[in-house]
């Protein structure tokens, strides 16, 4: 009789069990963790200075001295790749913070106030969403002049409205839940409802959104750097490194592969984590036919 009541697994075991079941999520976490380690590695390992040129060793293939080879100015590709981790990922994370700083209050206020405020706020978001995102970012950069800062601002300006919309949708769904209604009827203040009831509810799906959106922001930022209107050389940044690698891809494929794989892996890590979290949250299984 007792054998069918669940054995209580401890949280860690449960987490590990979940990770095993969600291999995508665990791979994603491992990738992101690896990038975090790499970005910290200069504290322990001495790399060649990422901007140091060795003009005699230009475009050299991977060797014991330069494990990932050198670029067109004889700079060490490995150390540039490592130095680019905090720049590229940092820029994406920073852009995401800016996006959230705008879209979270925007979506919360619109969702909770409803009515005319909601209509006006969403209309304003719609105006920006009327432009394809990358094109809007391009226009903003055209306004500010090319730089990493401008591309972050451009991307944030183009990306926040859709995030605000998603957050608003989450808020609306949360607002309809019984206990939120009850709290409201019980006379809880808006602020209290937001922080005590709505935020905890939208946080899990918001994590999914943040993870997936950071991936798309990272892609956008590296695209802009690749077009030469994002991070400016000699700043090590993956998109910019690819831009520099372009002319040489016939002679030095390693210049093209290293930053390209770096972007792909980082985006993959973020996507896997986002997808994995989504599956963790949505445990429904389809009927088999």
């Amino acid at each position, binding site marked *: 009789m007792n054998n069918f009541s669940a054995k209580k697994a401890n949280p860690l075991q449960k987490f590990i069990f979940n990770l095993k079941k969600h291999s995508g999520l665990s791979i994603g976490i491992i990738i992101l963790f690896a990038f975090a380690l790499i970005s910290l590695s200069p504290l322990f390992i001495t790399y060649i200075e990422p*901007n*140091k*040129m060795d*003009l005699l060793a*230009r475009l050299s293939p991977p060797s014991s001295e330069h494990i990932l080879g050198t670029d*067109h*100015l004889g700079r060490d590709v490995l150390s540039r790749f490592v130095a680019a981790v905090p720049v590229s990922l940092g820029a994406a994370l920073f852009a995401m913070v800016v996006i959230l700083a705008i879209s979270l209050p925007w979506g919360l206020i619109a969702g909770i106030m409803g009515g005319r405020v909601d209509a006006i706020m969403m209309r304003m978001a719609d105006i920006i969403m009327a432009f394809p995102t990358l094109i809007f970012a391009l226009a903003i950069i055209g306004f500010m*002049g*090319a*730089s990493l800062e401008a591309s972050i601002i451009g991307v944030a300006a183009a990306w926040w409205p859709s995030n605000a919309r998603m957050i608003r949708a989450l808020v609306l769904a949360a607002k309809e839940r019984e206990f939120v209604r009850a709290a409201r009827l019980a006379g809880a203040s808006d602020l209290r409802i937001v922080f005590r009831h709505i935020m905890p509810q939208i946080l899990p799906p918001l994590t999914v959104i943040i993870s997936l959106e950071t991936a798309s922001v990272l892609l956008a930022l590296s695209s802009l750097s690749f077009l*030469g*209107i994002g991070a*400016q*050389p*000699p700043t090590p940044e993956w998109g910019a490194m690819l831009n*520099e690698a*372009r*002319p*040489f891809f*016939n*002679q030095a494929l390693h210049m093209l592969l290293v930053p390209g794989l770096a972007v792909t892996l980082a985006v993959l890590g973020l996507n896997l984590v986002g997808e994995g979290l989504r599956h963790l949250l949505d445990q429904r299984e389809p009927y088999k036919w």
Partner: protein
Amino acid sequence: MFKLSSAARLVSAAFLVASISAPAFAAENELTVAFKRDRYSVDEEKFTFTVRRPAAQIVETAVKPDANFLPEPLLFKSWDYVDGVYSITLREGVSFSDGTPFNADTAIAALKLYDSGRSDFLQIDPESFEKSGPFSFNFRSEVGSSLVIENMTHRATSLFLTGTNRAENPIGTGPYLFENYVPNQSLTVKRNPNYWGEAPNIDKLTFRFIGDDNARLLALQNGEIDIIGEVTPQMLLSMPQDGSVILHESRPIRYVALLANLNGAAPFDIMHDYKVREAIAWSIDRETIASVLYAGRGIPAKGILPGWMFNLGDNHTDGFGYDPKKAGEMLDAAGWVMGSDGIREKDGRKMTLRLVAAYPNVSSVKPMPEMLEQMFLAVGIDIDLVEVDDSGVYSSTYLKPGEGDLFMEFASNNNTDPTYLLNNLFTTKTPWASYQLTAPGPHVDAMLEQARAAQTRDEVIEKVRAAHRAIVQDDLAAIPILLVPNFTLSRPGISVPMSEYADWVDFGQVTLSD
């Protein structure tokens, strides 16, 4: 619409094949030349801009620059300048491609067009034209300039037949006829069978506009185009060394230099100190840059005008070598002492210089800015590098408001007027308002004013020489780095007659050896 045009192309191709196969025709030779930007414009009012490189095959100028950058006859047979009056004798036996004879009437009409344009480049007094014979006439400069003929070597001053639509069907006296134009894609010209001069080697020239530098090079390697007309140092770095791409070069003419902000407000006032400018000049390893970039064809520069040009000679400037130790001492002497982080400082202020690269765009000098940054870092100067791929942003955001310490430029005196470059870049009265901050002061203003007012060419050259020395040596308004040839790239089996001035590379005279 898209499909229609490709269908039309197919049909016309079919007709072409049919017309070729009928008589026993010698095989047509064709050449495809790639340029970065389509500069062909159809605005009649802006027609001074229209005759850029491709269209220059259709219309010709009055004179062309010779090897020493002096005007030599083309449509003008001879000219004379006495007391403000130019007397012109035209070449006889020339006619426009539609058969209209080229004579004093049509020439005057063509020259008068330049006053109806918005920009009065030639500064001719349009009321002063006076026909003195069927092939001769006189005119005056409205500003008393002795350099009108020199300015006519600019390809923007080609002579069109008036009374026709220059935008849709430009008619000139040149070796080619307008055939087809797809904006931002291609312009095709075909041989003018009735050309008055030496017949070109190539029957049909197609100019392709490919904006992306790498795409141009890859397309050449892939055999999709024959010649690249605009070549960047990155392309030369990545050029395959197996002989599949051939480099053609002129004498060095373009300069790469750092223009110093001599009149900037804080924080862009560090360059006011001559010692700092000199230290920078000594900390540039020009030999290394020259050996790595531009396929090793650039030479360390002692000035921004090459010595061969106008017979200026190499000796009126001394130039600067590479001596980081000396540079360091100069900076010490100027009060900029080394800080603990390897960056110099003075009165608590870090020596951070903003280097804006580059005019006309950063790809024309890349990756030189990064190389310079490392060299300056070695003497304790921190560089805030701003790369601009847009000459509009360059001049309006950085140059005009003085938002920078050093401005990297890649340009040339693309004109046989010896005062052209110096006057525009280094005088307080420059017509290019952005360049106020690079003017050393009244003494240079005066030198160039005298040069422009001089009535003989020797006198002009003499003054220019003095002004040039002042700018690149005594005042260091421009810190010279390299002098670079004008390049083209081609597939093997092509020989391109190069010119120092890109607009004067004559693609019709290309010889094919296969």
